[in-house]
């Protein structure tokens, strides 16, 4: 499986994303934000970072990059798309995912591990987890508070579009660190092929780091790709 990792001005963790894909058995390559195509890639990852300096709103300007049209087409055809952190913000701004991400309720930039529950495993990025599995992976964001109008939240719950939720945990890691509505840490589109999450699975995808809790996000993608080719 060939996975495109998009580089926007101000992206970060894109080498980690490539490495995580390769560790899971896929091949990864960068695409530039001004490219017009995904070059026949099977899946695309929008990495974290601070595209365009987060000017105006996080992701607000990146969503108009030329590559976004190609991503929109890829998503419409059912192709897997993962937005991590800033990538999640961009997908929301682009309307490919519902809701928006605003300033953390505590106003502080948060960089630490969090416990999240994998609520939905029927996505190309979570299928290798057990339903309701608890994983500890890092967050690093200032604008991570997920918000959406109440009817949209109801719809997300009814359709099973909540993918990750900040979990009640042992005392050392507070639940719902940023004040997200319904403790939402990740969502998907109605079809389930477009997924956005604030935590960074690519930052914890190698046992050399003491945990590879994020590894199966990429294993999920590779297994989905193999299943699709059968």
């Amino acid at each position, binding site marked *: 499986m060939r996975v495109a990792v998009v580089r926007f001005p101000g992206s970060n963790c894109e080498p980690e994303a490539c490495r995580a894909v390769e560790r899971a058995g896929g091949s990864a390559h960068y695409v530039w934000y001004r490219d017009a195509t995904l070059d026949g890639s099977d899946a695309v990852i929008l990495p974290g970072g601070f595209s365009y300096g987060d000017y105006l709103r996080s992701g*607000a300007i990146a969503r108009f990059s030329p590559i976004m049209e190609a991503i929109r087409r890829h998503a419409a055809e059912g192709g897997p798309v993962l937005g991590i952190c800033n990538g999640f913000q961009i997908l929301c701004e682009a309307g490919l995912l519902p809701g*928006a991400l605003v*300033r953390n309720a*505590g106003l502080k930039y948060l960089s630490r591990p969090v416990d999240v529950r994998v609520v939905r495993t029927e996505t190309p990025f979570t299928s290798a987890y057990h339903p309701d599995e608890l994983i500890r992976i890092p967050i690093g964001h200032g604008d991570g508070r997920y918000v959406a109008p109440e009817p949209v939240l109801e719809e997300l719950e009814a359709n099973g579009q909540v993918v990750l939720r900040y979990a009640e945990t042992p005392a050392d890691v507070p639940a719902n660190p940023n*004040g997200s509505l319904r403790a939402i840490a990740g969502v998907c589109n109605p079809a389930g092929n477009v997924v956005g999450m604030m935590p960074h699975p690519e930052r914890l995808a190698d046992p050399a780091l003491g945990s590879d809790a994020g590894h199966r996000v990429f294993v999920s993608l590779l297994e989905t790709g193999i299943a699709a080719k059968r």
Partner: protein
Amino acid sequence: MTWRVHVRILPRAGLLDPQGQAVEHALAALRFPDASNVHVGKAIALDVAASSAEEAASRVRTMCERLLANPVTEEFEIAVQPGEAT
């Protein structure tokens, strides 16, 4: 004709506004207990070429819907004045 347009963007009513709350607490600490319901947003000023004030306002409304504001989280108001910025 050129119009000077000011866009005022505020967090949508009912949405938690931690910046507004922090400023309100700071005002209270500075002994301004008469201040309440504080909200922090942003202001954008731009020149717009249009044949009428209505046309300028309509163009900027479209700009707000497409880029300047996020309808999920923000409300905006538009004020149009004749002439360029001094």
